[in-house]
Structures are given as structure tokens and as C-alpha cells.
């Protein structure tokens, strides 16, 4: 009886944990739907590939060490296409000191503005004026800002690389799909354009309210 008791307690705890995760809207790693098979098949695969020398932050900005010893900072493929085509606007001026978590640049999806946060602390050394206000075609090469990192202050642990980054990117697209489904004012548009059409819609942002944009920043662009 004691054996049964302990065993049922063990199984009970595992089941409760699954229920708790369910109420939180998360899934246990064992029962996660495998991204590549279902939802993600409709998102172009090249959006997931992250070059090996790039570190992706949780706020969908990336950094890459360049030959000058500076860090190039840009927006990753997700940030570049989540709600339509992104245009970077409002970069900081040269020489400004940034702390990790400060706004590094703003961007627009159509008429909706979003803020991107700086993944590192340091001084802004240079700005790539050629990317400002344009559609980016090669997100991991088109840097927006160069930063001289504050010595010893690189928060390496906050970044994802290689396969981990790609897997995370897949999850973010799934999260985005759910986010859009529950936040868009016109579900039909999102459904029809983004996931039935086989490519990301350029008009997704239209369906979102201003409040949803704030939620989007919180969910996807915070570090």
C-alpha cells in the first residue's frame, strides 16, 4: 500500500504540473507540438536560420563582433517581418551612452511604431544611415548601430546562438501566431493573409490596436 501511495503521489504531482502549465497556456517540453511540422511550415524556412557568428537577444536584436572590436547591432529576421515590413527609424546619435535595456532605435510596421532595446551597454560609435527608413533584405548583415561595449559588461548569458537561436525563433513565430489570433480586431485578415497565403502578410499591423502594439513590445521585444 505504501508503494502504491508513493507512486500515486509521484504521478499526481506530474499530472498537476501538466494542468498548471495548461492553465498558464504553456506546454510541457515532452508534449510540445513540434514547431517544424505544423504551424511553422507556412513561415519561410530561411527566417529561422541564424548565422553562427551572430548572437540573438530576447528582444529580437542581434549583435556581432566586427573586426574593429565593435559590436554591430541589428534587428533579426523575426523583428524584421513580424507585423509586416519593418523600417528602422530614430537611431541614437553618435557618442551616446546606452545601458542594456535602453531604447536603441525605433521601427515602424506601416503606421505602427515599436521600440527596440539595446542588448548591450556601451557607447554608440557609428550609425548606418543606409538602412534607416528602408526595407531590409539581409537582416543579419544590415547593421543599424555600432557599439563600443563597456568593458567586461557584455551580458553574454542573455543571448542565443546557432541551433538554440533557430529553435527559439520557431517558437517565437508560433507565439506570434497565437498572439495575433487573440489580439487582432479582424481575425479573418490575419488568418487569411499570414498563414493561409503561405507568406507573412505585409498588412498584419493594420489589424492590431495601439494597445496590442504595446503588448507586442512587452511579449516580443523586451529583453
Amino acid at each position, binding site marked *: 500500500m505504501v508503494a502504491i501511495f508513493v507512486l500515486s503521489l509521484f504521478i499526481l504531482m506530474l499530472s498537476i504540473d501538466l494542468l498548471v502549465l495548461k492553465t498558464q497556456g504553456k506546454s510541457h517540453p515532452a508534449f510540445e507540438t513540434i514547431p517544424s511540422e505544423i504551424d511553422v511550415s507556412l513561415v519561410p524556412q530561411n527566417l529561422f536560420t541564424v548565422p553562427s557568428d551572430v548572437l540573438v537577444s530576447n528582444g529580437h536584436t542581434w549583435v556581432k563582433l566586427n573586426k574593429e572590436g565593435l559590436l554591430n547591432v541589428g534587428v533579426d529576421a523575426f523583428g524584421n517581418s513580424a507585423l509586416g515590413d519593418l523600417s528602422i527609424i530614430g537611431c541614437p546619435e553618435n557618442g551616446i551612452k546606452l545601458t542594456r535595456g535602453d531604447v536603441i532605435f525605433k521601427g515602424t510596421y506601416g503606421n505602427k511604431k515599436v521600440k527596440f532595446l539595446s542588448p548591450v551597454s556601451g557607447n554608440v560609435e557609428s550609425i548606418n544611415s543606409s538602412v534607416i527608413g528602408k526595407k531590409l533584405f539581409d537582416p543579419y548583415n544590415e547593421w543599424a548601430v555600432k557599439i563600443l561595449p563597456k568593458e567586461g559588461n*557584455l551580458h553574454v548569458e542573455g543571448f542565443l546562438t546557432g541551433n538554440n537561436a533557430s529553435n527559439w525563433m520557431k517558437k517565437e513565430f508560433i507565439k506570434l501566431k497565437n498572439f495575433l489570433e487573440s489580439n487582432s480586431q479582424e481575425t479573418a485578415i490575419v488568418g487569411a493573409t499570414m498563414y493561409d497565403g503561405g507568406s507573412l502578410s505585409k498588412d498584419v499591423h493594420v489589424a492590431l490596436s495601439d494597445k496590442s502594439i504595446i503588448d507586442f513590445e512587452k511579449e516580443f521585444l523586451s529583453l
Partner: protein
Amino acid sequence: MKPNEILKPTFWKVVSVIIVTAGLYSTFLRFSQGLGATTNLYDTAPWGLWIGFDFLGVGLAAAGFTIAATVHIFNLHKYEPLVRPAILTAFIGYSLVVCLLVVDLGRPENFWHPLVMWNIHSVMFEITWCIICYTTVLTLEFAPVVLEKFKLKAPIKILKKISIPVVIAGVLFSTLHQSSFGSLYLIVPGRLHPLWYSSLLPVHFFISCIAAGLSMIIFESYQVSRAFNEEKGFKNPGLKMEILSGAAFAVYIVLIAGFLLKIFDFISNGKLIYLTIASTETYLFLLEIILGTIVPIALLSYKKFRIDKKWLYIISICVISGLILNRLNVSVTGLAASSGVNYFPSFDEVSITMMLVVLAMFAFRVVVNYFPVFVEEEVHNIALDKKIQLTHIK
């Protein structure tokens, strides 16, 4: 983590606090009023849930030596990412066992006696010393992780030099005490139910701990990836399915070996007849064998289940359940009939046990948060880190 994040109540935090509070109160009662007032132990059933749980804890912590041997002795470096989690699990598992033993001892203030008072004929004596030595080995094996954090390089070099003898000693100590938990019951042929009693008991214990220890590591990988993937700033350990499937194959082989040995034991000692007697013991034995051995063997024999995330998780739970049933069957169920009393743990016994489990999981979490236990992408990032520092020195 920020303080307000730590204080933010989540379901499991609330449950843990309740369990630990109840456990602390029970611990207080246990030490102020004695065993009689707080446990349901009895003269003819002197060992209960706590001892059973010690067997469980040690059995499930067995990956500490199997993985270390696989990587360092057999040089299969593919499994390297599992070494640190396995050693940490073992270390925390053994600490839990020692705490629970101290609670269970009638005279806990005398716990140091085995160090100076020796009776080399006692299995218990051998177990005590093996556990002391093995815990030392685990400390040595885990020390580099701590030293790495504090950037102390000289001691790491020394530890690296002695690492192979240390691992070998660890494997030997583990082999001895894992099997000796079975030897404890060799002296009670008349009391332990024949379904479990066997002169091969130590071998059964040893084999089952290998399978269960590996399953525990598989199970734990899921829990770790469940617990840490949401946290900001934490390198997502993810699920390394390739490695886990490899470990699962080892579980498969070991389970088959254990099952064959059990069949041999039953046939050669004429014990098959007991399976036909309808009794609680028989049902629990069958449950143990079916859930913990036959079902996992059946599932693991298909490659598609071995490489499937969901099924591998279920299989690991089955094998762990099998070990839970086996150890508690040996230590409680199998002795119930001869003790003449129907032992069932008291509230205090259960709450102290649960408290220690919660504390062990908490300890695991804390260590994983502060020390580099999961190392996969480490090399790349450190390289980058160094580069940046170098450019600055220029």
C-alpha cells in the same frame, strides 16, 4: 532574478512553501517528541517510508556513476553534457538521503559513531562508509564546476590530474553500496516475501539502479527544460534528443538484462508458483514488473518510441515508477505479512519526506542558476567574451 520576481507567487511556489512549513513543523515534533509520537513505525515494522525513500533516493541518483564512467572511463564523449547534471543529481540525492537517515535514526546525535566504532561484518557499516566515500568522490567531481565559477585554476589542474582514479573509485563505491542495499535484506529470508527475497538481491538492486538512474536523468532533462526555458538570461538547455535516445537504449539493454536475471532467479529457485497466489504482494509485484520492466522494454524496442520526445518521457516515468515500486515493495510490502501489522506512514513521516524532496529540487535549481551545470554552447560564448576583453586591452 529581481526580488519582486522571486516573491511573485506561482502555483508551485505556494505549494512548496506549504509543504516546507508543514515539514518543518513535523521535524520539530519528531525531534521534540520522539519517533513513537510522530511515526507509525512499530516494533515488528521498524523501517518505514523513510528507509524506503532512502533506497529510492540512492537508486535514482545512480546516474552519477554510470554517466561518469561512460564519459571518462569508456571515453564516449557524446554524453558529456549529461555528466554535470548527473553528478549534481547524485550529490543532491545523497544529501537528501543523509538528511532523511538522520531524521530516521533513533539517536541522531550519535550519527558520527560509525566513523570510530567499526563492525566490518555489518552490511550497514559497509553502506555507511561507501556513502561517505562516494559523497567525497562526488564533491571532487563537482568541485571543478564551482572552482570554474570563481576562476580558480590551480585546484582545477590538480583535480584534472586525479580525475580518472576518482571516477574509478566512484564507480566501485557505487557498485558496492547500490548492491549492498539489497544485501541488507539477505539476513531476513524468513521475513521478506519470497517474491522479492533472493540470494541475488544485491545484483537485482545493482541492475535496477542503473536503468532507473539513467531514466531519472532523462526525466530530469525534461523537467530542467520545462523549468528554465522561460527564464530570461538563462541559456536554454533544451532537449538533446540524440543523447537522451542513446541513454534510452542503454536503459533498454539494462532492463532486458535485469528481466532475464529475474526470470532465471524465479525458475531456478522455483518461485514461479508464488505468482499464482492471489495476494496484495503478488499484485504489487506484477505491477512493479509490468510497469517498470515489461512496458518500457516493449516500448523501447521500437526506435520510433526511443526518439520520440513524448514517448521517451513516458518511458522514463515508467522505469522510475518501477524502481519506486520495487524499493518500497522490498522495504515495506514484502515485510508486511511477517510483521503482523499493516504499516502506513503517518502525516509527519510523509510531510518530512516531501519537505526534503522540495528542498532538494530547490537546491538543484539554485545550483543550476549560479553554476555552469549545463554546458553546451559555453565554448563559443567564452571565446567571444575573451575576444572582446582583448580588444579593449589593446
